[in-house]
């Protein structure tokens, strides 16, 4: 299949949301849980290399069918580079499609490495950049019912 055909399939799958089952290979063997939480009871297990159908994604978890059952596992236990390609993407981008088109056909200048090298600096544009005050931002958060919470930074694993 050509690259553009893959893209078209991907768009179709993304548009259909997470209802579409898509194949993926299991990278790390282990249990399938009843809910997307490590503390949830196990409903079965999957072996490394097993082919499963991804039926949904929630947060950092994927719901899969295969290996004799249905259950949840962490996304990092799936092999995302290999396998169906377009298929598993449907399960990764949850929710509705973006506001625009995946394959951007709109015009305008690009921004690749060569464009940067040849660019004439626009200092006036930098000086004209807008900003928001901290109080306006706080008001905006309250209007969106966003509540700040205390969460510790993550360490690499």
């Amino acid at each position: 299949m050509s690259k553009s055909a893959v893209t078209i399939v991907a768009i179709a799958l993304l548009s259909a949301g997470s209802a579409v089952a898509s194949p993926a290979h299991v990278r790390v063997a282990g249990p399938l849980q009843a809910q997307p939480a490590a503390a949830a009871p196990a409903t079965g297990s999957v072996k490394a290399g097993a082919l499963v159908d991804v039926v949904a994604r929630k947060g950092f978890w994927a719901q899969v069918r295969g290996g004799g059952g249905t259950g949840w596992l962490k996304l990092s236990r799936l092999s995302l580079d290999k396998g169906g390609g377009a298929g598993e993407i449907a399960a990764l981008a949850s929710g509705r499609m973006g506001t625009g088109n995946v394959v951007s056909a709109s015009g305008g200048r690009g921004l690749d490495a060569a464009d940067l090298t040849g660019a004439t600096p626009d200092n006036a544009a930098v000086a004209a950049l807008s900003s928001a005050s901290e109080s306006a931002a706080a008001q905006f958060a309250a209007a969106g019912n966003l509540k700040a919470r205390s969460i510790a930074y993550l360490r690499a694993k």
Partner: protein
Amino acid sequence: MKARICLALTALLVTGAQAQFKLEDLGNLTKGKSLPAGVGDVLGKVQEYAGSQSADDEVRSGDTIAATVLGAAPVWRNPRVQSYVNLVGRNLARQVERKDVTWRFAVLDTPSVNAMAFPGGIVVVTRGLYRLLASEDELAAVLAHEIAHVNRKHQWKVIQKQKLIAMAGEAVTKGNSDRTAQVVTDLGTKLIARGLDKTAEFEADRDGVVIAARAGYDSSALISVMGRLKALPNNADTSLLFSTHPSPSDRIEAMTEAASAQVEAAAVPSAAAARIKTAQ
């Protein structure tokens, strides 16, 4: 002291460190026993120097580097979107430690798919990326990653270290501030084209997830964004993004493995998710 640093660096460069010289590598070398006494001290001073530059310097340099990017891709003439992105960004920036930067956010009028941070607090998202985003949570995820780069001074530290090396190779630089500024701008522009190392990108992903979650957003929204990026072809619009970042799959894997129980509990769409529809 400055002269000693320059001399030591020049010596190190001559004795085999290549153009792709990394200070961290030298730091590791000093753990061995073969380096002459004193080199470790000098390297420590260099690190100290890189961290000691004032925020004013950082903002000034970052603005000059941003001017080159804005010269290549102008700010999108869509005041509603610019104002909206500034509010989302500024609210996220309230969640980080640094208070000495001038936060400014902008969407650039280019179909390229990318986002960038500059030392001192300018963060840009391209129109190509903005249009892919399906929720305010996804926009917050992208902006939080960039805010994390500024908060950790990722770009600024690389520029400072490379500046010292570049200056060590030049005979007459002392007191020539125009020349110094030019060197910093050139290094900054090159850094945008070349990208940070993967460690910094993974760190910005982990920090970004936390910063967005602290502000009340879905901690897993960056994974949704990665899903969208994964679906894009590698072409003129995505080449810079893909060449300067680890693959979306690797980033999903690293974020998922690092996620704590606290972060997982925050993987719920926010009440403000649909607000992005009002700013198009």
